[in-house]
Each structure stands twice: as structure tokens, then as C-alpha cells.
């Protein structure tokens, strides 16, 4: 059983050694990075039960801040992640406190977070002196890692990025797993399942909602910075509502009840357009239908339907 659980990871780890198609590996890379975003989003959505529409904003903010730090202060990618985290935390606290202090639930929470992410996008879009507005920013340098033996290596080229993003994904999953198996995870579950009861059991729902929102946004921001440095170009549409919706679609398709579910969703939705040879419009229609059918026919998503629905809390 344990072996089976690790099998897919091992398979992914050795894939580039057997498969040399840049095209397919690229799909994997995007799936990994978007998977990071989706997994982190699922922390606040699937596990804490809060439908946040701020996720794309966190993703985009991460991308911008990291790049700006690198380009303006000439620090390394890794150092630049610190301001990224700091700023994401700050923003998450502002948005989160407003939403949760005023006890905005479900739909209202979704709309207000959407409003904030839209504001973030408009600011990024029009703050030309810093973000270069709609023209976006070209990210020309790549992160450098130090590998024992190989020395410092610039992450460039498909294989390098494959492993880089793969490790990033594993990190994200690990963080989520650790948080969820701890008492924090139990509090998240309590909030998701029954807020009133959670309160009477002495759980500070405000604090834990905020915590969940913050962790998710940080991870999303990191995913964003990886994405930016891979694709080499940042534009305001990173923060668009459409981006949030894509992430939500991934989570639902893959399954919101498990940590790895969203990854599966990310793979399907990223790979699908390139697997099926259809006219553009028909493909979009198919995409829509898949989304609809998943929700109607297997509300627990792919993974949720495969795995038995019980979850250890």
C-alpha cells in the first residue's frame, strides 16, 4: 500500500530520463507549477471550506514582487522570496481580517475577495512606473541552485525546470500535509464542517480562517514566482478572475477532498487541450462540458471518486 502511494512520485521523478519530448515535459512543468497553486488553494477551499477568489491575485503578486526584488535590488531568486512572502502575508492579513472580522460567509466572502483581487489587478495594470503596466515585464534571469558535486547550476532548459518545478510541487504538498495532519488541520476541518460547533468547542475560527487564508496565499505566491521565472514574462492578466476560475476548476476536477487531487486536475486541464485535436471552439466547449459533468457526476472529483470518500482528520 505504502509503496503504491509513492509509485507515482517515483514515476514522475524518472520520467525525463526516459521521455525526451520537450513538448510533453513542458506540459508537465506547467502542470506542476499550476498544481502548486491548486494544492495551496485547496487548503483554504477544500479543507477550510472558504471559497477564496483572491488566489490568482496572490499568484500574480508573488510573481511581480519576486521579479521586482530580483531586478531592482539585484538579489538572488531565493533572497527575493523573502519580500515576496512578507508582502503576501501583509496583504493576506489586510484582506483576511476585513473578510473574517465582518464574518463574511460563502458567497459574500467569494465576492469580496474577488473584489480585492480585481483591485489588485487594476493597480498592477496601471502602476506603470513599477509594473510596466500592460506591457508586462520580461523575466530574463533564472534561479540558480547549488547542487553538491555539480556546483551552482542555473535552472534553464526543460529538464532542469522539470525537476525544479517538481520539487516545488513536492514542497507545497509536504507543507500542506504537515499542516493538515497537525491540530491546525483539525481546526480547519472543524470550521469547514460546522462553524458554530467549532466555536463552542473553543476553536478561534477567526484566527484559523486567517491562518488558512494566509498559508494558502503564501504558497500560491511562491508558485507564482516559480511560474514567472519559468515562462519568462509577467503580465497583469496573472491576477485575472479567469486565472482564479481555472485554479478552482482544477481543484474540483481533481477532487477537493484530498491533497493530491488538485494536481491531477492541473494535469488534466493543462494537458487536455494539447491531447485532443479539435477545432478551437469545439475544444472550449469540451472543456466546459468536462467541468460540468465532473461536478454533476462525480462531485468528489477524480481522486475523490477513486479513493474511498473517508478522510482522516
Amino acid at each position, binding site marked *: 500500500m505504502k509503496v503504491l502511494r509513492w509509485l507515482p512520485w517515483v514515476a514522475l521523478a524518472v520520467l525525463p530520463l526516459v521521455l*525526451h519530448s*520537450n513538448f510533453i515535459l513542458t506540459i508537465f512543468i*506547467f502542470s506542476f507549477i499550476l498544481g502548486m497553486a491548486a494544492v495551496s488553494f485547496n487548503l483554504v477551499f477544500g479543507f477550510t471550506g472558504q471559497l477564496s477568489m483572491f488566489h490568482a491575485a496572490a499568484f500574480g503578486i508573488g510573481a511581480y514582487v519576486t521579479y521586482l526584488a530580483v531586478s531592482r535590488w539585484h538579489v538572488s531568486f531565493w533572497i527575493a522570496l523573502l519580500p515576496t512572502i512578507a508582502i503576501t502575508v501583509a496583504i493576506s492579513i489586510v484582506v483576511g481580517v476585513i473578510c473574517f472580522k465582518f464574518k463574511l460567509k460563502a458567497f459574500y466572502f467569494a465576492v469580496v475577495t474577488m473584489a480585492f483581487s480585481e483591485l489588485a489587478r487594476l493597480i498592477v495594470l496601471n502602476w506603470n512606473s513599477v509594473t510596466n*503596466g*500592460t506591457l*508586462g515585464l520580461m523575466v530574463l534571469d533564472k534561479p540558480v541552485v547549488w547542487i553538491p558535486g555539480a556546483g551552482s547550476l542555473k535552472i534553464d*532548459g526543460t529538464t532542469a525546470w522539470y525537476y525544479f518545478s517538481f520539487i516545488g510541487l513536492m514542497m507545497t504538498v509536504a507543507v500542506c500535509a504537515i499542516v493538515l495532519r497537525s491540530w491546525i488541520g483539525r481546526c480547519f476541518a472543524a470550521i469547514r464542517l460546522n462553524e458554530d460547533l467549532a466555536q463552542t468547542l473553543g476553536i478561534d475560527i477567526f484566527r484559523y480562517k486567517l491562518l488558512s487564508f494566509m498559508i494558502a496565499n503564501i504558497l500560491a505566491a511562491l508558485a507564482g514566482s516559480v511560474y514567472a521565472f519559468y515562462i519568462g*514574462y509577467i503580465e497583469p492578466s496573472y491576477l485575472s478572475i479567469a486565472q482564479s476560475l481555472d485554479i478552482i476548476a482544477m481543484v474540483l476536477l481533481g477532487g477537493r477532498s484530498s491533497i493530491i487531487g488538485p494536481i491531477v486536475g492541473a494535469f488534466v486541464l493543462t494537458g487536455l487541450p*494539447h491531447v485532443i485535436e479539435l477545432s478551437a471552439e469545439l475544444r472550449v466547449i469540451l472543456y466546459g462540458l468536462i467541468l460540468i459533468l465532473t461536478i454533476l457526476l462525480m462531485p468528489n472529483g477524480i481522486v475523490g471518486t477513486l479513493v474511498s470518500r473517508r478522510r482522516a482528520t
Partner: protein
Amino acid sequence: MTRMLVWICAIAFAVTPSFAQDVVKIGQIEAQTGPNAIYGYMSSQGMPIAVDQINKAGGFKVGDKTYKLELISPDTRGDPKEASIQLKKMLETDGVKFVFGPFLSNVFVTVEPYAKQFNGKFLMMGGATRIHEFLDTPDHEFLMRTWNWDAGPKGFGNLMVDRLIKDTGAKKVAILIQNDQGGKVIADIYLPMFKAKGVETQLEFFEPGTKDFSAVLAKLAAGKPDILFPGYTDAALYDIVRQATEGNYFRRFFLVRGSLGPGLKNKDQIDDYFVYVPKYFEQAEKTDPKIAKFVADYKAFYKRDFPYDQAPLCSSSCYDHVFMLVEAMKKAGSVTDVTKIRKELLAMTYDGLWKISYDEHGEEIINFDVVHMTKGGKIAVTSIEAR
């Protein structure tokens, strides 16, 4: 590691031609759906017709071999991620050597660093405004821009602004333009241009997708400018022109993108309507048999009416360029030697629907029309020989 990969690719490419028999693959990366699809959609209309015609005619002969064309045109939906995956597939899996598009600047800027690695191994012929700034820079010999440029002595924008000032004596121009890449770049080009010619300007941006412009139009009109310079997709232009005239904020317009359609629709409320048109099809169809044939072909091929107001967009990375490319291949005597083929493309002047040639930087120069519509829809077309 990277270098190794590049080598692998290089070898792969060195190998492909030997067994790529009598088919030449050409690719096109355009947004065929999605909010920014208008340009991409139109330019993905002409290509299939051209390919179809060439193949129906039994292909084309280069050296002693006859080749047919195979068109690969995925839909980027304007999403850079999609586009970069699709381009990788084209260049590495399908071994495409001639890529038309993209038209969207954000897509181009995203794929540029990757495409650069294949410099000298393929040609990218796109209309994106931002391709301009990369032309003639190191490692960008693969780039050609299939749309003429506004600025510079030969730039159509320059010619048009001169014309505008000559005909109307405009002293102050209000610019109302879409807040996206194209819009930004246009603003960056024209603001200094007007300034240089001693014309005052007011500038306002609007979110793409805006439908009601009354507020911003009123705001601009309050500054008492002589003429409105709105941009740049017809989707917005129809609304802007209508609302500008109905609310009588503006009655004179100056367009360097977009079509005559909006003007004609409101012809009775308009005093002057200058528009840059790569070709004024309504008129050309009557005089030029080639155009008439194209319109007929289009209708036959798609079984739908010919989109006169959008048709000028077809000039970009489509119909003519396929024939032009084939010509260049014949001249070069090769379907794989992109450097040679590029040289031929730069050298030739192709006389199709448009009279197309490239300047030394690989940017297109086409003859174009300036249509000046006056009250009641009186139309004066001036064809401008770009060279």
C-alpha cells in the same frame, strides 16, 4: 545541460529534412477564440484558403520535387502558456520551420526567449506590435513583422498625421485608447509624433471590454479638442463613434487601426472620418479582379458572407504571405534553408492582394489606402505607394 538539449534539438533538426518528403509544414499561432481573438481570428481565416488553393493546384515545385503544404494552426486563446506549449510542439515535435503569428504582443513576448534558441532554424512571421522592438537585434534573424509600422519616415502613421494636419488643421487631438499592449504601444508612438508636429494631445485609457464610453468621452470633450483619435479594435470603435456622435461629444475621428464600418454606420453625424485601411475592399473589389476573386473564394470556402470591415486584418500573417513564402522557397531552391528563404523574402516584392515587401529590418511595407469620409458618407480614397 541546456547546451546538450540544444544540441539534441539541432541534430534532430539536421535529420528531419532527409525524411520530411514532399510536405512542407507551416504553423500559425493565433488566438482564434477568447476576448482578444478578433485579429487572430481574422488572420487564421486567410491561411487555410491559401493552403487549400496551393494544394488543389497540385502543390509547388522546388528543384525537382513537388511539395504540398500542411497547415498546423492551434488556438492560443490569447494565453501565453498555451502558446508556448504549442510553439514547442511545432518546432520540436512537428518540425515546423515557418510559423505565422502571433498577433498578440503578450503571446509574442512570452515565446520570444524560447524561440530565440531556434534562431536560424525557423522563421517567425507575426504581426504583433512588439515584434518591432526585437527586429534587427542579435539572435533575432528568425523574426519578420508582417504588418507595416506607424513611425519612421516611411511609417504610415507619420504620413497619416501629416495628412490630418494638412486637411483639417487640427491643433489638439484627444486620444482614447484601449488599456492593453497594442493600445499602450500606439500611445507611445503617437504622443511624441503629434508633439513633434506641434499638436496638443489629451490621453485616456479604457479597460478592454468597456461598452459605455459616454463618461470618458464627455471628460475628453470638456478639453475642447478638434478631433478624436480612438483605438483600436472595431469592437470598441463602433461603440465609441456612436456614443461620441449621439452625445455630440465628437464629430471628427482619426483612426490608425480599425475600419471604416463605424464611420459609415454613423455617416450623417460625422464631419471627418480618417481611417487607415490596408486595403479598401469595397472599392478594390470593383476595380481589382484579384480582390474580387479573393472575396469569391472566401465566400465559397467558408460559406458565409465576406466580412468587409474586418477583411483588412487578413493582410497580416495570412493569405498573401503563404504565396509569398512559396515564391521565396522556389527562388531559394530549398524548403529548409530558412536563412536563404528569409533573404529571398526580404528581396522580393510580392504583388498579391497587397503589394508586399520588407524593409531591411524584416518589417513589412505595404501599400495602403487612407480613406477620408465626410458628412453623408462621401468617401475619398487615397492609395499611398509605400515604396
